[in-house]
């Protein structure tokens, strides 16, 4: 059998060519085409400043943050198959994941550790952008987008904390949301809150929790923020962030 002939037959077929727009030989032309003619690759420019490759310049922390976001999306979607955001079921669902679902424990662990890792990597990414002075013109606005992403990342992690419905998550979220009581004007224990008629049943904390306590409604709200709203918002801002990295001339470098 003639392998080369077969290869040629396949790669010149209508089916193959409808998917692959160019040949795969390694030459300058295909290197460009590989980036240009693929949706995922074309998030990149064709060429980048050499500095983008230096680990001591980027620490790779932005990329790692993005990759962790993808890992979290995949593992999170799988977890959603086994999880009901209601008081009667949530805790038992976690136990079920741990003891009955094949690789359930591994799945849960991956999601949790990737979440912690993402909080760390986003801090470190900010740290490196600061230390290399990469927020300076023309990248000021991308730094602002970044700070929003940092805040959103921590909120994502925080809303996920409650979902296990165990003592750890319950009290961590109780301690966290109790702060909202003290919001000036809008919290019932905050400065001037009582002047505006704030009570535990109508203040900003009530709006966050859907109740005066961390209970069933809070679980559902945390779930919706955690699994739908925040990931969508983060995805939009990450798109803006990446787009701006390109529009600002790629990774910073000394001029």
């Amino acid at each position: 059998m003639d392998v080369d002939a077969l290869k040629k037959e396949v790669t010149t077929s209508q089916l193959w060519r409808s998917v692959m727009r160019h040949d795969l030989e390694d030459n300058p032309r295909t290197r460009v085409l590989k980036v240009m003619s693929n949706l995922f690759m074309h998030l990149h420019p064709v060429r980048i400043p050499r500095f983008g490759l230096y680990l001591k310049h980027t620490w790779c922390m932005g990329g790692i943050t993005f990759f962790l976001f993808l890992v979290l999306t995949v593992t999170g979607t799988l977890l959603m198959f086994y999880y009901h955001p209601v008081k009667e079921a949530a805790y038992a669902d976690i136990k079920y994941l741990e003891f009955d679902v094949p690789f359930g424990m591994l799945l849960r662990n991956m999601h949790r550790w990737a979440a912690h890792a993402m909080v760390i990597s986003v801090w470190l990414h900010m740290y490196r952008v600061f230390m290399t002075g990469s927020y300076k013109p023309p990248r000021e606005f991308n730094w602002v987008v970044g700070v929003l992403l940092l805040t959103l990342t921590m909120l994502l992690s925080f809303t996920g904390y409650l979902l296990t419905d165990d003592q750890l998550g319950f009290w961590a979220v109780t301690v966290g949301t109790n702060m909202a009581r003290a919001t000036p004007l809008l919290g019932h224990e905050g400065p001037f809150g009582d002047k505006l008629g704030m009570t535990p049943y109508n203040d900003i904390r009530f709006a966050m929790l859907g109740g005066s306590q961390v209970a069933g409604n809070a679980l559902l709200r945390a779930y919706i923020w955690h699994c739908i709203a925040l990931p969508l918002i983060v995805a939009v801002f990450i798109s803006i962030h990446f787009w701006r990295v390109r529009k600002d001339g790629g990774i910073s470098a000394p001029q």
Partner: protein
Amino acid sequence: MHQFWEIISKADNVPIVIMLVLVCFFTWLSFREALKYDRARAEGKTVKQAVYAEEAGFPERVAVWPHLVRQEFLVAIGVTIFLMLWSIALDAPLEELANPNVTPNPSKAPWYFLGLQELLVYFDPWIAGVMLPNVIVVGLMAIPYIDINPKGSGYYTLRERPLAISIFLFGFLFLWVLMVCIGTFARGPGWLWFWPWQHWDVHRVVAETNIDFSDKFFGVDSASPMGFWIGLAAVALWFPAVMFPPLLLPSFRRSEFFQRLGIVRYLVFSSLLATMLATPVKMILRIFLHVKYIWVTEWFNV
């Protein structure tokens, strides 16, 4: 000591230990690169020559395929393996079913918020839990519009931007990372301070008599009208006391730094700085002089 090991190796605290190692490493890396650059500049090299001198002569731009794509691919594999090993070695914690009637002591927020929870020792919740987080976020966003020093864009240096770097490092390393560590490792039952070798005793009581600012320094009852005015004055004067003294110096007003910044930027910058510095000042007042509130009012306390 035995218990300290238990706390450090608690599954949810392992990330903090990893973070500490990484923060130390990257701080070292940044300083090493910055010192290298500063030295090369002092020897009269140009910016470009000084940055990564060893790679001089390589092309400015490189093809994404294969160079960047290969790197991304390798890092993705590396991170996946790391996560897999971590997840096999260590199980995510799951405690008892949530029970509003059983309050753990201490009750802690998730670890990345423990810096803010630690500040609750020094400030009321409306400051530590609401104002400061908002000031931090706004302050971070303001950085590129306040620090308009054109030098140090895209490379490491200490000498060309000493002020920006010291302020950021102070905020990040001391007011954020260190506070997270204190909140996690040194705060036990009752949010009391425990050294690593001390046992977290639930029944421990620490007698602490705190007094307010006006009682302490003026012998005036902080709840009295006079105490109110003294407190108000102390808080209101703190900001101008940080912001205005440099402005009185003609040499500062003529300095290149101030000329470039302009008065509006300077005021925004110095008021944010005053807010940031108020945190350690209040901590010192509290720890060493047992001052609880600076300003006591009917509606809120500072």
